[in-house]
């Protein structure tokens, strides 16, 4: 393809779009289903942030590990966790990725290198150091990526882990998903630096900051830092500046946001629209191809919801199962 200005060939462009659209469809549907009251507990939606998960995960395979956050659906999907199993898990069903015992905040699939969404902010950073350490001992070229928000960036675990990864030169990438809010508290209030690059510099880590709504910016920066880590160059930090279309959790009235902020972001900073506009403009991908993916994923998510609702509940005996491997 001579007329391709992008760093990916067409099949990978379609793959990236498919990943982001799957996440979007999944989250938009959960927004509706949650409001109906069918989903137990609470959910934190990733809509608006898809370019980050997709842009990073395009560089990873199953030997690479990720440690996610409370807002983990996007990371799971981009890392290849089965969408049906995820949906069933969120509905608390026996067919869920964690047999209904984890829920939205604890979806994991270790066979895919997904070490878990995590209800404790910043807890993934030490864990991913361990994944990096294991990869180093195995010598298989695997890398670990931990995601955390601007809020969790202030956890001691994250700061300690950046230092640990740096001194041990671990193949680890720290991805700050800076969506501007720690729950309701603005990053400008809670963090005394303008860029997380400054924080990385303090730990001797190379770092890049990109527009997290721009898939290509994330893809290229993550690619460079992950390649470096894979080749033994050590850890790095990537800050993705992004927007969160929904609240901290579903049901959050979001009164801490400016009036019209969500509408503006949806109109001007939608990573899916921005991606589609660019690939369509060049003509490398057609409108029909995009629409075909959209239709297909609409059906996939519809099917996952239908299946999840019909799926069996965990049995009473499951309450006490799997506390230990053996006891």
């Amino acid at each position, binding site marked *: 393809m001579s007329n391709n200005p992008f760093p990916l060939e067409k099949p990978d462009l379609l793959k990236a779009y498919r990943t982001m659209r799957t996440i979007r469809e999944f989250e938009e549907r959960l927004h509706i289903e949650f409001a109906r009251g069918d989903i137990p507990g609470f959910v934190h939606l990733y809509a608006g942030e898809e370019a980050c998960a997709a842009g990073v995960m395009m560089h990873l395979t199953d030997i690479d590990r990720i440690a996610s956050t409370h807002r983990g659906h996007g990371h799971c999907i981009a890392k290849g966790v089965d969408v049906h199993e995820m949906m069933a898990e969120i509905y608390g069903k026996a067919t869920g990725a964690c047999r209904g015992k984890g829920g939205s905040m604890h979806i994991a699939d270790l066979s895919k290198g997904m070490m878990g969404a995590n*209800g404790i902010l910043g*807890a993934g*950073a*030490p864990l991913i*150091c*361990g994944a990096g350490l294991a990869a180093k*001992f195995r010598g298989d070229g695997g890398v670990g990526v931990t995601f955390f928000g601007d809020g969790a960036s202030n956890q001691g675990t994250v700061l300690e882990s950046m230092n640990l990864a740096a001194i*041990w030169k671990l193949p680890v990438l720290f991805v700050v998903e800076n969506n501007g809010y720690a729950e309701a508290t603005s990053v400008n209030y809670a963090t005394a630096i303008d860029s997380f690059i400054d924080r990385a510099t303090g730990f001797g880590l190379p770092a890049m900051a990109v527009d997290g709504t721009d898939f290509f910016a994330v893809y290229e920066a993550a690619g460079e830092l992950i390649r470096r880590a894979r080749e033994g160059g050590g850890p790095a930090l990537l800050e993705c500046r992004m927007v969160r279309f929904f609240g901290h959790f579903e049901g959050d009235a979001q009164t801490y946001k400016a009036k019209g902020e969500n509408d503006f972001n949806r109109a001007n900073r939608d990573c899916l629209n921005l991606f589609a506009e660019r690939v369509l403009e060049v003509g490398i991908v057609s409108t029909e191809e995009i629409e075909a993916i959209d239709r297909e994923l609409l059906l996939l998510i519809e099917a996952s919801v239908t299946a999840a609702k019909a799926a069996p509940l965990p049995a009473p005996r499951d309450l006490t199962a799997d*506390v230990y491997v053996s006891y």
Partner: protein
Amino acid sequence: MARKISFKQAINEALDLEMRRDPTVILLGEDIVGGAGGKGEEDAWGGVLGVTKGLHAKYPGRLLDTPLSESAYIGAAIGAACCGMRPVAELMFLDFMGVCFDQILNQAAKFNYMFGGKARTPVTIRAMVGAGFRAAAQHSQMLTPLFTHIPGLKVVCPSNAYDAKGLLIQSIRDNDPVIFCEHKNLYGHEVDVPAEAYALPFGEANIVRDGRDVTIVTYGLMVHRAVEAAAVLAKQGIEAEVIDLRTLSPIDWDTVIESVETTGRLVVVDEAHPRCSLATDVAAYVAQHAFGALKAAPQMVTAPHTPVPFSPVLEDLYLPTADVIATAVSRITAREKLVA
């Protein structure tokens, strides 16, 4: 071939044998090599009390000195365990758990359950416990009940070198996260220990001394105090059975209940604080499951509900002694002995 070695040597030997057997066993901790990056000897310490001394030379690259970042390196050990390694992390003093508790409580302990039985976290966290070292309030606690309360964790607290070696080997081979408590006042204690590798199963208590009159249930350093008390009591015609629990989670209820059904009397000795401890746990379990066999109210001998004091005179008062244990036994045996 058995020979007398210390508790400390037994730990070292267990680590050595498992590192030799299994290349995925790695050690992490503060100064477990000691001297890393300094201008003197690289293997200067081998742990703050020399427990890991010599292993660095045998297994270069597999002992990792860590920065003083307990959350990061305990978490890294847990993360590595999820990725195919069998790390043994040393938390110098169990008291330091306060700075890394999340990684134990919310991460390691919950992965298997929370992820639907699909996670394996074979990590061992070794830590010094216990009072009597003049180390004051933040380096002397017996925090075992904090960990026995948490589903998903196994908790081990051996009383002698033989058990320490076999239980540590089992801990490393075990597929669940294990909190391995080493009483610092037992490090120098010697018993016969076989040179070869052996694993002692979890959940099997050891009857240290047979007796028909009263059951003393305990673990760790207090086993020795209980045995001392039993010797004193024997001179008064009271035969105490002393049960060393060895592992606190899982716990060997069968041995405890069988003993109480024979003796009809229970004294639980726990170096931890009195509330919500192993003492209350065992007393409650026996009250519920062997009430009919009891001839007297179960007695609890514990440290007081205070932090560990520094001044030796106070610390000696803090720790249960053989005298205090013997007195507790006398409280529930005295009348019958007088009648007899």
